[in-house]
């Protein structure tokens, strides 16, 4: 007799499973989670804190906030940031001090850990939300974050 009850119970569990997938099939149109990616680029918005790429924001006078203190270079675990600095004459006070020449950022080595952004004392670098970083030549992934001809904003060192 347990032969027949085994068969009956087995078929009951199979039909329960089929009902679950059948339910999804019937509501397939509104349940589907596919995003038609290349077509929806305008409406696709990442979260504010999403870690896409490290950038240095410049305001409308082409000024940034990086003083060349090298805190980010020390904080980075694998050397993705290189600061090239120079001692130059500061136009305001007339003394020689450390100023930034180039802030080199190797996107190919960056692990997106966020330690550089936490370490920066002047909030010069922030996260950007762009995720389309693929290029054809690896050399394009080595970026210079400060734009040519930009200067430091006044009063940032305090």
């Amino acid at each position, binding site marked *: 007799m347990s032969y027949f009850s085994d068969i009956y119970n087995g078929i009951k569990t199979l039909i329960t499973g*089929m009902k679950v997938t059948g339910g999804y*099939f019937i509501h397939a149109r509104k349940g*589907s989670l596919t995003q038609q990616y290349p077509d929806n680029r305008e409406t696709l918005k990442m979260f504010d804190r999403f870690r896409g790429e490290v950038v240095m924001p410049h305001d409308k006078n082409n000024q940034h906030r990086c003083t060349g203190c090298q805190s980010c270079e020390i904080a980075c675990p694998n050397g993705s940031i290189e600061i090239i600095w120079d001692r130059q004459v500061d136009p305001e006070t007339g003394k020689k001090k450390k100023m930034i020449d180039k802030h080199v950022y190797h996107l190919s080595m960056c692990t997106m850990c966020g330690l550089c952004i936490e370490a920066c004392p002047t909030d010069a670098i922030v996260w950007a939300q762009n995720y389309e970083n693929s290029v054809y030549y690896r050399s394009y992934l080595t970026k210079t974050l400060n734009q040519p001809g930009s200067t430091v904003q006044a009063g940032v060192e305090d």
Partner: protein
Amino acid sequence: MNFLTMNIPLNITSTIHDWIYSIMPETAASITIMVLIAVAYLALFAVAGLYLVLLERKVAAWFQLRLGPNRVGPWGLFQTIADALKLVSKELTSNDRIDKFLYNLAPYFVIVSTLIGISVFPFSKQFQAFDINIGLFFLIAVSSIGVIGILVGGWASNNKFALIGAMRSGLQTISYELSVGLSILTMVLLTGTLQLSQIVEVQRTGGWLILQGHIPAIIAFCIFMIAGTAETNRAPFDLVEAESELGAGFHTEYSGMKFAYFFLAEFINMFIIASIAVVLFFGGWLSPFGITDGITWFPEVFWFLIKVLVIIFLMMWFRWTFPRLRVDQLLTLEWKYLLPLNLANLMLMAVIIWMNWTI
């Protein structure tokens, strides 16, 4: 809407038949007709195979909360044409230690057996290529030839994984043919004939066979669906090509067009099992409650295809819901559960017919 006033040629096959006989001598005409029918079936095979693949991908996607292919053509209709072009243009790779003759011969076994198989079905009253009086018996006999192709393909590939897969498939197919045959036999008791067109005729007058035979017919249908799914090596019985276990089973070493042959043959086998179920249990090309009977060939083909697609959907539903059975559990299912139930069902049907308790 009066169908009779529309200018639809009512008897297509006899029209073409007479026309060809009138323009050629006798033997040339019969050969031409045979070639035409073969070409028509090859075209049906290719189109049906390709669009069943697309249907499977779309249905699978809808079960899995996503859309299927929808980029190539509207609703992805040209997707399988793109896939077919890709498969045709692929390089036919193989080892240098394969058994060349058997390796090249194996796909043709499965193709030929499925092509012979779809030639006996009645798509409508006039569209049947091969109406012999032992139709069902012929069909089961021919579908057994396909298993030779799988075994030969696995052996000739000189690959351990392929060999394991092919051996598993061989024993699975041989075991489940018994159940398929016995459940078909149960319904043949009701109809009294093995000829497929006569089986549909019996259902036209008496109602669909699954209703005529009530309890034993329903049990026979359930057993037929389970055994039929196992015959075609589909999930939950697809340990042959268990992708998660041993690479790709018996067709690991095949690529390009030869792989396409195995792949298409699996889908056409599914079509054959579904067609047998429709003809035997659900009335073939008859419409439900006889609403459009007698009107040319178009509604009849339509009803046949709709019923076949419903059964194919049921088989796809099985595939995407259940996990896979292990080899020894598969054999236990067949020899300890399906076969005794089948024999008991056969005797039950015989008793019901003898006591005149059919509907």
